[in-house]
């Protein structure tokens, strides 16, 4: 079945440093979604990318969808302590729509002040 892999599993950074997490799917995706889960919280939807090569920005966060629509990345510029949490990518298992999401294992970000 479809697999979504994420690296790294865990990243420590000093506040102000940049952070990147990478996501790879075993199959071509109709879209890729990113979620953030704060410690003790629930996954919160951040963004969805649909087009090949698409790049979207949310303040200090930059999301990219690969040309082949099999990989994606999330880059955070100048991390802050509020960025702490686990970042998950997820892709629909199927042609999209309301298909179930297959989640990556997540990248846990720790930010030291």
């Amino acid at each position: 079945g479809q697999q979504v892999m994420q690296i790294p599993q865990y990243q420590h950074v000093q506040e102000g440093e940049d952070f990147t997490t990478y996501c790879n799917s075993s199959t071509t995706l109709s879209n890729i979604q990113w979620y953030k889960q704060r410690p003790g919280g629930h996954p919160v939807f951040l963004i969805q990318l649909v087009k090949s090569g698409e790049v979207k920005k949310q303040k200090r966060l930059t999301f990219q969808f690969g040309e082949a629509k099999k990989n994606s990345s999330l880059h955070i510029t100048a991390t802050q302590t509020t960025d702490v949490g686990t970042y998950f990518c997820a892709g629909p298992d199927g042609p999209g729509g309301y298909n179930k999401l297959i989640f990556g294992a997540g990248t846990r970000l720790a930010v030291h002040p």
Partner: protein
Amino acid sequence: EPEVTQTPSHQVTQMGQEVILRCVPISNHLYFYWYRQILGQKVEFLVSFYNNEISEKSEIFDDQFSVERPDGSNFTLKIRSTKLEDSAMYFCVIGGVAYEQYFGPGTRLTVT
């Protein structure tokens, strides 16, 4: 972001007991899902529900699990005979208009 609420926030039960996890209130949504997350692990799909019917279920969702929307608003997940390995966070999720998914705060199920 659509609001999703879940009750209880934490449920402790003994192995073999039945539990019902509730997602309330839900209105004006068609697509619902249950996912679970064992502590420190990835989010796993359990079941999707559309138009009052199961549309897809995972291998995890065996005969011990069932879902209902008994009164058109509440959405429930029942586990008939809990096992130790059912201990996890269970998230009720609704589908957004652009196929994004919105997670409820979750119910932490602890089976002893």
